[in-house]
Structure formats: C-alpha cells, structure tokens
C-alpha cells in the first residue's frame, strides 16, 4: 500500500478513504482467490511423488508468506509510530495483528495436515515450525500488550516496541530450512529457476495475491473500527453516528 501518508494521516480522512477502498480489496481477493483455486485444484496436475495432498501447499505457502509479510509491515508501522509519534500508523499496526495471527494459525494448521500424510506426523519440533509458532505467540503478545493499558497510546507504543524486538524472528523462520537440515523442505519457489510446474507456481502466486488483497481489506476494515474507538469524542465521529 503506497498511500501518501502525510496527506491522509488525519484519522477522519483516512476513515472515509479506508471505507471506500476496503470493498474493492475484498472483491480483488475474491477474484484472485477464485482464479487461484481453479488453477490449483483443477488445472494443476497431480504431483508425481506426493499425489493429490500436495494441493494443500496452495494455501499453506501463501499463508506462511502472509504471516511473515504482515508481521514485517506491522513492525514497520510500529517503527513509524514510535519515531514520528503518528497515531494512524499505530492504529494500522493494531489492525494488522489479528489478520497476521489468523494467517499464522492457518499456515501451522495446513502444514500439519500436509505433514501427516507426507511425513507421518502432524507436528515436528523443527526450527521452521517452532519459529512459526513463536511468531504466533508474538502476534498474541502484541495484541495482548496493545490492549493491556488504560491509555491506548501507551499500548500502541509498548506493542510497537515488542513488534520491533520480535522482528529478529523473521529471518530465523525464513532461513531456518537453510541453516538447519531438517524434515521441513526448502523453499519451493526460488527466484532463479523454479523447481516446480508452471501451473503450481501460478496457483500459489494467485492465492498469495488473494490473501494479500484480503489482508489489506480486512486491516482497512478493522482500522476503521479502531479509529471510531479512539476518536469517539470528536465531532466528526459524533456526526457519523447520527
């Protein structure tokens, strides 16, 4: 999202803007999702080694990407809110956290239902899965800390700092399959020469786009609620509710 923040950084402007944009992102998410599911479930051929069960990766891999990407964006918003003391950035960080936690949960869940038929176990304590679990707890910690204070600004700042501290976990998740030789397979999509069929790649990219658009739509919708909570004593919110 490249939005000229300093122009739209006023909560009332952004509230309207977000309300106008969010449905479009949901529409895009649905379109990309339908295309991705069609490519992934119908067009893509059965995998020679894994059979049909590999089709779980069409949600597993995009959800894992989103879990990390949303955390990164959330930490960036946190950093912006700490350095420039902007309210809206902190609200965006808050709005992203539940969606990020949801995708982290989906990544773990689909991973274990892929692991059971493939590896013979739902759960392995390997580096990538453990660090992804830590990511889930970081999201929970962020949400809990942000809501643990009487003064919401206090929660904003404390949670933003926690998000920045937890940022070290991202490279650990990403490189864990390279650093430790474990059960979890390496990245399936590489920049130089993909190791997979072209339909599979397209299916995953379309699903990732769908999740991405969904995340933007969901966080814009949630940030509207956060803005309403924060600004409920201002005239423009009062005027909205009448």
């Amino acid at each position, binding site marked *: 999202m490249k939005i000229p923040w300093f122009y739209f950084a006023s909560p009332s402007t952004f509230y309207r803007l977000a309300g106008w944009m969010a449905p479009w992102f949901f529409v895009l998410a649905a379109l990309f999702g339908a295309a991705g599911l069609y490519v992934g479930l119908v067009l893509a051929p059965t995998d020679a080694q894994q059979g049909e069960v590999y089709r779980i990766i069409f949600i597993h891999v995009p959800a894992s990407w989103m879990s990390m990407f949303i955390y990164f964006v959330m930490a960036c918003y946190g950093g912006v809110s700490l350095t420039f*003391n902007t309210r809206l950035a902190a609200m965006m960080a808050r709005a992203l956290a539940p969606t990020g936690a949801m995708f982290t949960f989906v990544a773990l869940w689909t991973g274990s239902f892929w692991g059971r038929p493939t590896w013979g176990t739902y759960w392995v304590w390997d580096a990538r899965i453990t660090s992804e679990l830590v990511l889930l707890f970081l999201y929970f910690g962020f949400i809990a800390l942000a809501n643990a204070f*009487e*003064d*919401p600004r206090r929660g904003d700042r404390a949670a933003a700092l926690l998000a920045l501290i937890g940022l070290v976990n991202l490279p650990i998740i990403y490189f864990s399959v390279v650093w430790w030789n474990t059960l979890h397979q390496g990245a399936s999509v590489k920049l130089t020469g993909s190791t997979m069929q072209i339909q599979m790649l397209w299916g995953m990219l379309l699903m990732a786009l769908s999740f991405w658009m969904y995340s933007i739509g969901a966080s814009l919708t949630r940030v509207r609620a956060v803005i309403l909570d*924060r600004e409920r*004593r201002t005239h423009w919110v009062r005027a909205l509710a009448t």
Partner: protein
Amino acid sequence: MTARLTVAGLAASRGPSTLFRDVSFEVASGEWLAVRGPNGSGKTTLLRCVAGLTRADRGEVLWDGAAARGDARFHASLLYAGHQPGIKDDLSAEENVRSALALRAVAVPDGAVRAALADVGLERRRHLPARRLSAGQRRRIGLARLILDPAALWALDEPLTALDDEGEGLFTRLLERHLATGGLAILATHDDLAPAPARELRIGA
C-alpha cells in the same frame, strides 16, 4: 547564575480527553511558579511534561533557550519529585540521600549528608530503613535532598503533603534560599507559601 525556563504552547491529553492546551509561561532565576487547579486537572502531567517524562501533544520546553528534553545540561539542573519521590524502603535515610545524590552525579563532602539530615530532624533516625519512618519523616528525606542538591530548577509535585507545620516552615526557608541563590521552581501546590509566587498558572478551570 541566571537561568530561564520557557514553556510555549504546551498541550497534553489523557486518553481521549484534553487536559490542557496552549499553556505558556516563563520562569527566571529567583522566581517560582505556582501551578494550581482542581484534582485531575493535569498539574502532575504538566510537571511531567516540563521534566520531560511525558511527551506533550504539542508545544516546547526550553531551558536557557535550548530544547530541554534529553539535554544533558537540563537534566543536570533539574530536581524533580513526583507523588512518589523515589525513596527506597529498604535503604536507610542516609543511604537514600547518598544514593540520590550519587545518581545526580553530585559530589558530597564528608559530613554534609549527616548535617543535612540533622537539619531536617532525622539525625537520630538516619540509619533506620525508610520503611520504619512515618510519611512526614519520609518527606523530610526529600527535604534533605533539597538542601544538598545544587540543581537550579525544582519541579515538585505537592511538596508539602504529609509535612507538619515545622516541616512546612523548613520547606519555606529552603525555597527562600533556593530563590535567593538564583534558583527557580515550579511547584504544584494548594498552599500559599511565604515567598509569593512570581506567577500563578491555573489549569483545568
């Protein structure tokens, strides 16, 4: 020594409600400012903003013309005491005073701490842990700090709480001496003190 504290356009809020806005004043050497207002009006927040603990929504605090927040010279010149003045229950009165002065990087000659504790009436109790002192006696530990600390700016929140008449008299004389030697002070207080404030600031009215 001459010093000047300038506050311009200060605004602060607690949650969604505004405490004060556009507060401006100036205090120079030899003057003190009384901050008055009903409970919950933001006197404490104002002092904390001036000290640099709380970030104000807007406005600036200048010490001798330079931005105060985070400035080493300002911190060396500031003595702040809030509702909880930072007295450790497990340390004795003397240890509390020494520790506070060491933290402020003030070198104390031998015997000065003891003499100051004698001045505030704690000489015989100076080795007792602070938890065994009464509320007023604990306040007097703070008075001993005021005697010894060379800070030019006092920012004190309700400095007379729990002090008896004699303690109040002692504080008044300390304030007089502080102002006479070129110090300045911001006090949040309901009482009328003997050296009349140069200015009064009413907030939350």
